[in-house]
């Protein structure tokens, strides 16, 4: 099928992809702009199969969102609320313990925990959350607190980034999720989330974590007001950071969901754009081991197709996803292991249950 990709005008990129040569920013822009979805996907699939063979990863995880009270109130977010909002909530440390106990009999290997930038919860609250989870489930891996939350905790604890990361690690933190990256471009942050940690600072937190042997993920919230050039610039910044530290595990493109946000007049992302974001990321981020098609964001059907468009991971069982569902996601809130296995097998891939760090737990 190589000749069809050449016919689509991608002969040069195909050669680079075959040779494992790095794509330029112009290449990234061209891939995003191409109307030939199959050609872009085909290129991504070459990289995907070289890096991850026929494997498709999933994880048995639990999501806990400890509070939606947030001082940032980004325009693309339907989750964050003012403290006085009727929809505001805050879990106590005991509440979180109960959440963990509710599912204690399940073979959960990861607890994924994020929340808003809360105005006055003390630093001890956050370390207590980690400790209570570890007390109830000593073997679980806690992936918690985006780089934005880490920067906030560094400030309120007075420990600085290195100090707070070391302290959180001691309390049980295993790794850091990729949220809060949004789009790094200062123009986009100015227009949509001016109070949020700047992109350069987000990257500094991530790199600092990597140097302390904490792995992190990276995301990009696409499909709102960003341009193609800003997407590729974002990917380029991630690629450079990864060259420096090698600490990113997965890149996860996140589809913007407009409902209940201040940008609710925008439309939802399309299937073509969802697949392109996955495929271009796979081609461009040559130093990222994994690309995740997060099914909560794009639906089970499209995440299955994404396994042929560059993705090698579909996230996991999730359960009780709140953040995207508050923004009108019509996907389910959880998937069973059997559903995940079938979705992956029917896509012609081998289901691999992994832990957070991509160690194989079970191959099906």
């Amino acid at each position, binding site marked *: 099928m190589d000749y069809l990709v050449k016919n689509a005008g991608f002969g040069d990129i195909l050669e680079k992809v075959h040779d494992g040569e790095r794509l330029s920013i112009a290449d990234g822009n061209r891939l995003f702009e191409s109307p030939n979805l199959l050609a872009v996907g085909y290129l991504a699939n070459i990289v995907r199969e070289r890096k991850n063979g026929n494997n498709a990863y999933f994880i048995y995880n639990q999501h806990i969102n400890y509070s939606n009270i947030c001082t940032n109130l980004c325009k693309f977010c339907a989750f964050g609320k003012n403290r006085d909002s009727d929809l505001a909530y805050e879990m106590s440390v005991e509440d979180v313990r109960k959440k963990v106990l509710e599912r204690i009999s399940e073979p959960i290997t990861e607890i994924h925990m994020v929340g808003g930038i809360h105005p006055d919860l003390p630093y001890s609250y956050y370390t207590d959350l980690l400790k209570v989870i570890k007390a109830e489930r000593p073997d679980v891996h806690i992936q918690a607190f985006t780089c934005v939350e880490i920067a906030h905790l560094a400030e309120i604890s007075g420990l600085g980034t290195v100090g707070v990361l070391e302290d959180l690690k001691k309390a049980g933190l295993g790794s850091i999720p990729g949220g809060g990256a949004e789009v790094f471009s200062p123009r986009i942050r100015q227009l949509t989330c001016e109070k949020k940690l700047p992109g350069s600072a987000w990257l500094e937190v991530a790199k600092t974590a990597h140097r302390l042997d904490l792995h992190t993920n990276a995301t990009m919230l696409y499909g709102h007001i960003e341009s193609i050039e800003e997407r590729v610039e974002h990917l380029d910044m991630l690629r450079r950071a990864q060259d420096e530290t090698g600490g990113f595990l997965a890149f996860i493109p996140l589809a913007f969901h407009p409902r209940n946000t201040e940008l609710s007049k925008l439309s939802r992302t399309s299937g073509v*754009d969802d697949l392109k974001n996955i495929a271009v990321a796979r081609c461009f981020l040559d130093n990222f081991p994994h690309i995740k098609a997060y099914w909560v964001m794009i639906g089970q059907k499209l995440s299955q197709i994404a396994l042929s468009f560059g993705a090698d991971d579909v996230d996991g069982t999730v359960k009780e996803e709140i953040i995207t569902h508050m923004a009108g996601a019509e996907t389910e809130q959880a998937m069973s292991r059997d559903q995940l296995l079938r979705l992956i097998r029917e896509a012609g891939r081998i289901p691999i249950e992994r832990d957070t760090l991509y160690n194989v737990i079970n191959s099906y």
Partner: protein
Amino acid sequence: MSNFNSIQQKILKSERLTEQESLVLFRDGNLYDLGFLADFVRWQKHPEPIVTYVIDRNINYTDICVSACKFCAFYKVPEDAEGEIISFEKLQNKIEETQKLGGTQILLQGGLHPDKQLEFYEDMLRFIKKTGIHIHGFSPPEICHFAKISRLSVAVVIERLRQAGLDSIPGGGAEILSDRVRNLAAPRKCSADEWIEVMRQAHLQGLKTTATMMFGHIETLEERLEHLLRVRDLQDETGGFTAFIPWPFQPDNTALADIPKTTSHDYLKMLSWSRIILDNIPNIQASWVTQGPKIAQVSLFFGANDFGSTMIEENVVAAAGVAFRLAEAEIRSLVEDAGFVPQQRTMDYSFVTAG
């Protein structure tokens, strides 16, 4: 592998595959093999980047049905007090609403009613015809059923329906055109031969029809191919099919509810395969109703050149047509976002130009 290469070459040279080659293509081909080849065939047939859709309304004149198919969640048995036949007044309202929304046709289908004679259907057609709307109605199982109840030949039934105002025939009730599958899943429905014969008679009388296929239940891959080949053979003979619409079985609330739902991967492969095998059928429809907007849009790269129907629904129309307008706008924007030009059409794929 060289075998697979020669299969690809045949498709690129517009040569027909043998049955064995067709099966190898589906079994050994990945999503890209099938997608690229289907996309190639699509552009050969439709060199313009146009994706069509129709504004129509699905009207079910009755849900009372003697067929009781295992894959159906719609029917009521004749003894069920909740079964209904639509009134002429309701029909009139639905059609007027459709026309107000720019609709050009109705899809008129119903259950196999135990005792209505052909005159009943003729009266209904004559009544509807007064509105001037295109009537795309009565799938082959209904026509076979009318013939049996009224003790007439299929040809005579079609002739009389045509004279009463029938414009074209929908391709429903084809399910899988293999008698093994039909005997197990829909034993009281018309046979594969009967389905084909209705379409042959319709085409001979100058009526255009579509063809569907409901896959992903108890059929084998060989039986899916048998279905495609029966449709292709008749098309070679008559040329009367305008479009093919493959859609996956939806198990919820049916007697086959234990069968897992076809995944989007299998859907896109099946869609592509249909585009490649049915080299004589001009149009292939995406099924957004079963696949949702994201996969339907992606289908445009896997052989589909038509987005099907906007499917005006009762409750939607009740809300003053607003949701429907959005539905048409959504179809148009999905098509544009994928890099194509949206175009409203009629049943025979003529473009509707008035805005």
